[in-house]
């Protein structure tokens, strides 16, 4: 079986190289036979990779431990579902899964676009085949998932990492990989358009749906990752700005920019060079993200490991991508000239320009900050840590700016907005902003970023509501239908636009969830049976500790009762699971009581079975479920926008009222922080801040002390806490304590964020300087556009006025029939 697998990989490489060569020859010579042969070879690649995937999954399912990859990531006791998902559990298999997905998607993309974009197809096949060849080459020469043990075959496997034996982890990697791989298709079509010189808008129409599919799956994968981190890691949060997390975020940011700027090209024939650049950059970032997580250049708990050979190979491939792609862009610059000028800064085109600037700035900031530890090690010989406190501080204003633009852009007119236009469009949204801002201030909501976020969410929500209402009124006027029918017809007929608005609504709801993090409450409490502890409105009572076993693991479970206002509202069972083959990696099984306004999140941090005592880490997470709900709304909106032209009945379509939702959330936010009961371990504000500033020493979690997934039971964490106790008792200040930790550790990487001085300032200064520079460049380019004259449009050929008049009349009939 292993030999068959290796043979299949080799055969796929040969067939892919044939597809590349023949497609290039066929495209240059316009030989139908060669092009068809190339397409046939392309389909064969997909079939061969399907066979290879089936072989490796079969090996997992039947427990063929002669194959090293199977032995490393599976065992006999593992449930069937996780045996199958082990396919992508390790580096070798994940690369093969990538090639499998790319070959299948590529085959679908070619099959569905063969007729309309005939001239592009040979080059699309060539580009995708080249990418496939790169990954297959890695497998064939270095990371073969089918390599076997030479001497003795182990009787059983080591088993998949217990942290990955989780529903979300089973679907999170495929979703992310689908997102990454789907971005190769727009890149291939973009390159084909550049190579053939067919740079009209046709290639955009071919790739828009693929970009949306890739974007949706990237969003889904990122959200699943957040859900997994929240439910499985036990630190009460969902995003740690880990390098692997950032690797998924980077192409998401540039793909979002592309989905917006493509509208400007379609409407106004502008940003043509920029759109091609975005497609190339998005693809490049998917490869760069893969490089980051597999080469060892960044340290991450999610990374596959360190491999200098792989690092060199990926570096070479990335250089080739950049040189080849931008070489063609430069060569075709004359064909990419903009057809129109920028008439006004107060226009939708300008808003989209600003949107693109912010998204690209975000991507650059995240990329630079992620690579900064590697850069500082290379330049100064000292590796730093750039953790959540740094990212949260500098990304917040950028996120808020993006939220503002989400509300402004739909209100502006194409080309130029008049003052009357602006007054009519902005009145209600600005009123909602002011009212919410005043309410936030009056309620004494202290976290500035969350307060501003609530006000901006109201602004954007009001914008969206206004668009739906006004659109329904226009439709009512045109069709004479009732308001509900008009609304349904409106969304049905303008799916792309209103699907996009629903996506924006999803983003608003997710931002609400993010804003709630500013009001998080957390306490550690050591409880004897019958004792209680209080966090916010909730009281937690310890009942008992139980110990159970199954084939795979031992489970230590805490049983607690949750009360609010003296009334029992839930029974929770937080647990620790110890897997037989991974005793050093116990998993944290979090108990969550979910509600619209907040989650009560309980982790079993430590326990004494004999005395039935337990230490719990209890967190109240306000508004967090709006993040997951917001994603569901976003996914619905994306699905709606992607629907084909055939009509879809939307009876019962509902649009949540953004302003009302925001007010309700504000009311739910009224939870005064209560003093801890006697069983709560007291933590001062300084201590909480230091726990966020210092990294855990255990080395496994690569997280700040307040995010360590091992919980209070972690030995590295306990050492850190003991030192903190000592320094705080001595009355040292924050700076003194941080300096003491750095001196003891022998390096600044014990800090979650670099000390803001000297070379370290570059971590935020350079991205912000580049961002401001980018803004200046955008401004200059926009000014140059606004001064150049528009190209006259090509007039259609006049082949007889009678014939044209008849055609025109037919066109008018068809337009009338559309309603």
């Amino acid at each position: 079986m292993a030999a068959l697998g290796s043979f299949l990989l080799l055969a796929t490489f040969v067939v892919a190289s044939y597809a590349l060569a023949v497609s290039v020859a066929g495209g240059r010579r316009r030989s139908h036979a060669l092009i068809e042969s190339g397409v046939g070879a392309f389909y064969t690649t997909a079939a061969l990779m399907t066979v290879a995937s089936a072989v490796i999954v079969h090996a997992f399912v039947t427990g063929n431990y002669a194959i090293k990859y199977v032995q490393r990531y599976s065992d006999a006791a593992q449930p069937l579902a996780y045996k199958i998902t082990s396919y992508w559990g390790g580096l070798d298999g994940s690369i093969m899964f990538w090639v499998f997905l790319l070959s299948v998607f590529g085959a679908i993309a070619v099959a569905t676009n063969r007729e309309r974009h005939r001239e592009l197809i040979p080059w699309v096949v060539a580009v995708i085949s080249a990418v496939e060849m790169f990954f297959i080459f890695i497998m064939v020469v270095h990371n073969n998932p089918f390599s076997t043990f030479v001497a003795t075959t182990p009787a059983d496997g080591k088993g998949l990492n217990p942290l990955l034996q989780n529903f979300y982890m089973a679907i999170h990697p495929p979703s992310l990989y689908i997102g990454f791989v789907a971005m190769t298709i727009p890149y291939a079509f973009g390159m084909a358009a550049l190579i053939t010189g067919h740079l009209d808008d046709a290639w955009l129409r071919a790739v828009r749906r693929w970009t949306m599919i890739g974007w949706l799956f990237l969003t889904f994968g990122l959200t699943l990752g957040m859900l997994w981190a929240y439910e499985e890691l036990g630190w009460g949060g969902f995003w740690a700005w880990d390098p692997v997390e950032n690797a998924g975020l980077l192409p998401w940011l540039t793909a979002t920019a592309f989905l917006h700027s493509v509208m400007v090209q379609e409407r106004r024939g502008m940003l043509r060079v920029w759109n091609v650049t975005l497609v190339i950059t998005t693809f490049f970032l998917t490869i760069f993200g893969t490089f980051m997580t597999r080469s060892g250049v960044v340290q991450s708990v999610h990374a596959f490991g360190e491999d200098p050979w792989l690092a060199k190979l990926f570096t070479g491939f990335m250089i080739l991508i950049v040189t080849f792609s931008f070489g063609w862009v430069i060569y075709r610059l004359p064909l990419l000239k903009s057809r129109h000028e920028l008439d006004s800064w107060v226009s939708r085109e300008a808003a989209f320009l600003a949107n693109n600037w912010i998204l690209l700035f975000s991507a650059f900031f995240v990329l630079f900050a992620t690579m900064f530890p590697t850069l500082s090690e290379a330049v100064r010989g000292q590796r730093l840590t750039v953790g959540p406190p740094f990212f949260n501080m500098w990304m917040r204003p950028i996120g808020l700016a993006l939220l503002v633009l989400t509300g402004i852009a739909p209100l502006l007119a194409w080309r130029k907005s008049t003052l009357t236009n602006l007054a009519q469009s902005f009145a209600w949204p600005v009123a909602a902003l002011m009212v919410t801002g005043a309410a936030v201030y009056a309620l004494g909501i202290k976290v500035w970023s969350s307060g501003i976020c609530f006000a901006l969410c109201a602004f954007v929500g009001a914008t969206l509501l206004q668009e739906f209402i006004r659109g329904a009124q226009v439709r009512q006027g045109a069709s004479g239908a009732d308001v509900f029918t008009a609304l349904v017809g409106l969304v049905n007929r303008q799916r792309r636009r209103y699907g996009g608005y629903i996506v924006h609504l999803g983003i608003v709801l997710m931002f609400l969830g993010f804003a709630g993090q500013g009001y998080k409450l957390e306490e550690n409490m050591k409880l004897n049976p019958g004792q209680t502890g209080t966090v916010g409105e909730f009281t937690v009572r310890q009942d008992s500790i139980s110990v159970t076993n199954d084939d795979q693991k031992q489970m230590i479970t805490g049983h607690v009762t949750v009360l609010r206002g003296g009334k029992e509202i839930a029974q929770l069972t937080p647990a620790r699971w110890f897997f037989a083959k991974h005793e050093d990696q116990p998993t944290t099984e979090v108990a969550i009581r979910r509600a619209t306004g907040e989650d009560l999140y309980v982790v079993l941090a430590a326990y004494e079975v004999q005395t039935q005592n337990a230490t719990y880490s209890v967190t109240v997470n306000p508004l967090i479920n709006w993040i997951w709900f917001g994603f569901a709304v976003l996914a619905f909106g994306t699905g709606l926008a992607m629907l084909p032209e055939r009509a879809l009945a939307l009876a019962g379509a509902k649009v949540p009222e953004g302003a009302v939702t925001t007010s309700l959330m504000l009311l739910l936010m009224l939870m005064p922080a209560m003093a801890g009961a006697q069983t709560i371990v007291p933590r001062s504000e300084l201590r909480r801040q230091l726990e966020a500033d210092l990294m855990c020493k255990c080395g496994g979690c690569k997280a700040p002390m307040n995010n360590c997934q091992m919980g209070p039971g972690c030995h590295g964490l306990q050492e850190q806490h003991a030192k903190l106790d000592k320094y705080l008792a001595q009355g040292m200040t924050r700076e003194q304590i941080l300096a003491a930790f750095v001196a003891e550790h022998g390096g600044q990487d014990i800090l979650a964020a670099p000390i803001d001085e000297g070379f370290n300032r570059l971590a935020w200064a350079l991205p912000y300087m580049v961002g401001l520079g980018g803004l200046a460049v955008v401004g200059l380019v926009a000014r140059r556009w606004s001064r150049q004259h528009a190209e006259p449009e090509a007039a259609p050929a006049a082949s007889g006025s009678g014939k044209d008049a008849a055609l025109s009349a037919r066109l008018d009939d068809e337009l009338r029939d559309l309603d």
Partner: protein
Amino acid sequence: MSSETSTRVLPPKGGSHPVRPADPSDVRLQPEDQGFQAGHFFVLLSLVAATVAVVMARPNLPENLILISLTIGAAGLAGLGVYRMLAPLVAPQADLDRQPLSERMRLELEREKALTLRSIKELEFDRAMGKVSPQDFDDMAGRLRALALGIMKQLDAGSTVYRTLIEKELAARLGNKAASPPPAAAAAPDAEGLCECGTRNDHDARFCKNCGSKLRAA
């Protein structure tokens, strides 16, 4: 004709279902009634092989049997792919210039037309919402209308080609030795790469980037 129905498979204007050309060099446009094809062979072979493998497989757990069947099915597809890879190299070269619009091409053009009409309606909506000024509307709508008219001309030209091919086929079957009409819709550009469909191409283009017709050198 409403473009809401445009994505259905439509017969050409003549009313009869298109008779596919008898040109054997066109490996894509094969007559529907040609009988046993390569795809059928590989499917049958895969079915037989999968049946044998499933009967002989040990252990006969459901997941094992499903995977074996999928593997053999994929292998059958790989075989078909190899056939598709090699067959065009041995078949006579098709003449691109004389190829009529295939049914799939027609559907793609119909879809393109529907999208263009949808864009015009969106523009009208934008004007009603005050998002586009009247002169901008005239400018943008004019461009979109020209594009839609070009596509409609292409579709009409394609159906003319089908009619010509049907006449040729009938003439051949009835033993009529009259000379066949020349292929339709060889585009005659005015100058500077302008095609009959209305698309302006680069000055050195040999084929129209919109409809694929051959352009006469300027």
